[in-house]
């Protein structure tokens, strides 16, 4: 059989293909993004980017109602956005199998929190599979879709960053044979969730969980593995934590759970009875531990292993006090960090430079532009979640005196605005708040690796599509003052912001320029600029734009001077515009 080395995300896409998935929908979010990107290679799947996770799940529910197998994917915080349809979907159940992939991010590698979405399984009363490597990611995707149809329930597949982005060897299989035909079927008792109907569905949900719990005790995805020791230590674990447990405790016997909700209680009781010492090794919340404790079984878990951050073999070893800090080499000096920064030529840079100079209080949002927080731009004061910038600005404007109110600027990207910013703007106008909203329109969902969105003009599959007219959209919501600026023009950007901040009513500024990294319509790179050493006075104003291409070179005699790295510079000319001494020009 064919083997391949795949990431967890690639394996999920493959599993969906093998299982005959017809529709896949998602909003990009690290670490889940590559699942849908990898769906595109399978023409039998209709894969699409939705404007947000709630819509993605609603599309998935519709496809399932029509009898098609469906996969919906999102990062952990995306499930918060999709939670409304999710909880009721648990009542209706499915027609075609539906799996919701939640890609959690312990350690917050690229997220605003590290919530443990296993709690959603218990909360929404839905089963949850958790793979421990790419092979399981593929198999569990297939299994989740079958389980969904078998028990008439939506099913979670939970990954974590180390599963989503790690690669390991996978055996590929052929797609399943013929699946049932799709079609319309009226079944209001199941799909019209008015109180009378929903009241009758709820007991079915509870009964379903009980049946699944018994079923899960007999399934091979929950298995006991013998260790090399004398059988005194037992470990209950799942997901990536299983790998660390095996690595650090080869002597232990392990109950490896493939289904983390509902737990196979009889199996756990039987396993636990055999060991003097029983550990639960799991990342983040004591999700398994608390349920095992509630069964009256004594286990050691969060007393030893951290609640915060991801586990590693080292952290597991440390918890067990086996061996920790095995480093042979230790630095005897502090190393400079290497924080991420906006790319050279990034259209966001000039905007944040202006916001900094205007001493704006920036109500921020989620995207590449969140890097506007970093020094030296240092122009972001709040960042909560997708779309929050506008609502936060409205709230601020309601409590502030006029002179402070005028300093508040909501900053949001095009994709984030279309995700959940529109409602915030509608509220701002409707309730007569006064604030400035800056939409950074770079025509792409950049932070997650440049995905298409409803304002980019293309779909995930690469088809041409209608491009949302941002100006008309804002006007339709009732914004009277909508203007478009080019963020490469430093003075004009500054002036536009200054004018709109002074206005005591809602105004929208759209800073429009494509992301430098968009491949479809390559942005014309201009010749690299250079600093004239004779003219440079060493005032360092060009360093304030935070461009990675500009270096400061100190000198023993003089004041030092700026230098432009010609390999990085794309000639955007921002530095040239801010230089007071005409010291920056085109390279000779």
């Amino acid at each position, binding site marked *: 059989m064919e083997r391949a080395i795949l990431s967890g995300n690639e394996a999920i896409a493959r599993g969906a293909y093998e299982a005959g998935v017809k529709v896949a929908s998602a909003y990009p979010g690290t670490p889940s993004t590559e699942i849908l990107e990898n769906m595109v290679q399978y023409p039998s799947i209709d894969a699409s980017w939705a404007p947000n996770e709630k819509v993605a799940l609603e599309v998935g529910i519709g496809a399932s109602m029509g009898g098609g197998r469906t996969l919906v994917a999102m990062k952990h915080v995306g499930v918060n956005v999709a939670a409304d349809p999710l909880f009721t979907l648990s009542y209706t159940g499915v027609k075609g199998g539906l799996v919701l992939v939640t890609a959690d991010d312990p350690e917050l590698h690229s997220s605003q929190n590290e919530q443990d979405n296993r709690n959603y399984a218990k909360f929404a009363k839905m089963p949850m599979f958790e793979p421990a490597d790419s092979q399981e990611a593929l198999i569990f995707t297939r299994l989740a879709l079958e389980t969904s149809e078998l028990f008439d329930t939506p099913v979670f597949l939970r990954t974590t960053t180390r599963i989503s982005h790690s690669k390991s060897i996978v055996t590929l299989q052929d797609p399943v044979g013929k699946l049932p035909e799709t079609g319309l079927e009226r079944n209001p008792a199941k799909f019209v969730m008015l109180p009378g109907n929903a009241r009758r569905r709820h007991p079915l949900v509870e009964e379903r969980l009980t049946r699944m719990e018994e079923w899960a005790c007999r399934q091979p995805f929950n298995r006991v593995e013998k260790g090399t020791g004398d059988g005194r230590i037992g470990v209950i674990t799942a997901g990536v934590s299983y790998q660390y447990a095996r690595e650090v405790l080869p002597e232990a016997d392990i109950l490896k759970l493939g289904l983390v909700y509902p737990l196979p209680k009889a199996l756990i009781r039987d396993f636990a009875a055999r060991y003097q010492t029983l550990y639960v090794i799991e990342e983040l919340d004591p999700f398994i531990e608390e349920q095992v404790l509630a069964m009256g079984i004594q286990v050691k878990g969060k007393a030893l292993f951290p609640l915060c951050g991801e586990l590693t073999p080292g952290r597991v070893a440390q918890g067990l006090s086996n061996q920790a800090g095995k480093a042979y080499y230790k630095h005897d*000096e502090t190393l400079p960090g290497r924080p991420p920064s906006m790319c050279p030529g990034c259209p966001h840079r000039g905007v944040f430079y202006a916001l900094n100079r205007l001493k704006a209080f920036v109500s921020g949002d989620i995207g590449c532009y969140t890097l506007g927080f970093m020094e030296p731009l240092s122009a972001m004061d709040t960042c909560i979640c997708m779309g929050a910038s506008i609502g936060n600005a409205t709230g601020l404007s309601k409590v502030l005196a006029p002179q402070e109110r005028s300093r508040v600027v909501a900053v949001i990207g095009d994709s984030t605005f279309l995700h959940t910013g529109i409602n915030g703007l509608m509220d701002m106008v409707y309730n007569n708040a006064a604030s400035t909203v800056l939409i950074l329109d770079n025509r792409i969902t950049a932070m997650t690796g440049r995905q298409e969105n409803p304002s980019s003009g293309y779909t995930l599959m690469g088809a041409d599509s209608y491009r949302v007219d941002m100006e008309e959209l804002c006007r339709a919501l009732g914004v009277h003052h909508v203007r478009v600026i080019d963020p490469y023009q430093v003075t004009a950007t500054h002036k536009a912001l200054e004018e709109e901040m002074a206005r005591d009513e809602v105004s929208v500024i759209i800073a429009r320029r494509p992301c430098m990294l968009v491949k479809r319509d390559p942005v014309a790179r201009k010749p690299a600029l250079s600093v004239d050493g004779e003219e440079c006075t060493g005032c360092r104003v060009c360093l304030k734009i935070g461009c990675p291409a500009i270096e400061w070179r100190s000198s023993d005699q003089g004041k030092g001077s700026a230098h432009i790295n010609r390999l990085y510079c794309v000639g955007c000319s921002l530095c040239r515009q801010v230089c007071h001494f005409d010291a920056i020009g085109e390279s000779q």
Partner: protein
Amino acid sequence: MSNPVTNVLISGVGGQGILLASEVLSEVLMLAGHDVKKNEIHGMSQRGGSVVSHIRYGEKVYSSIIPEGEADVLLGFELLETYRYLPLVRQGGSILANNLRIFPSPVTLGKETYPENIPAKIAAAFPDFTLVEGLKLAAEAGNERTVNIVLVGALSKRIAIDDHCWQQTLRKMVPAKYLEENLKAFNLGRQL
């Protein structure tokens, strides 16, 4: 240990081609019959941040993360990023470093200084240390953008895998248009 696993770490700066290098290595190891796991973090690291890829192979690999002090080989694409990850390397481990400095933003802003004499510091702690003139060799191969493959070539000497596995994998993974210069780059690295 009854289950020996070999650990390779590749580090550098986002945008240097670390991902392709680690992909090539993983494919080669699978082709040679090993179990392989590879791990790296995407997302924020793409914007010029520090990037590190863990590759582990052997008969059976569990964790994809290399425990502290257990890397057998560290291949660094940039000096500071080589130096940064030394605590992950075991005593007597091999270090290969591309002789290149890329200043991180705290240094370009003049707020912090780039550590001095990194090669000498590495050599003092790890006798098996090779400094690679990646850019020079890549230019010799015909394209400055083949630095990552030069470095993979240098790494290949520290990993007991038949030459034909490397050649076969490069032929599979590199577009035909660029194959010749990449094979040349690989061989220049392998001669080090």
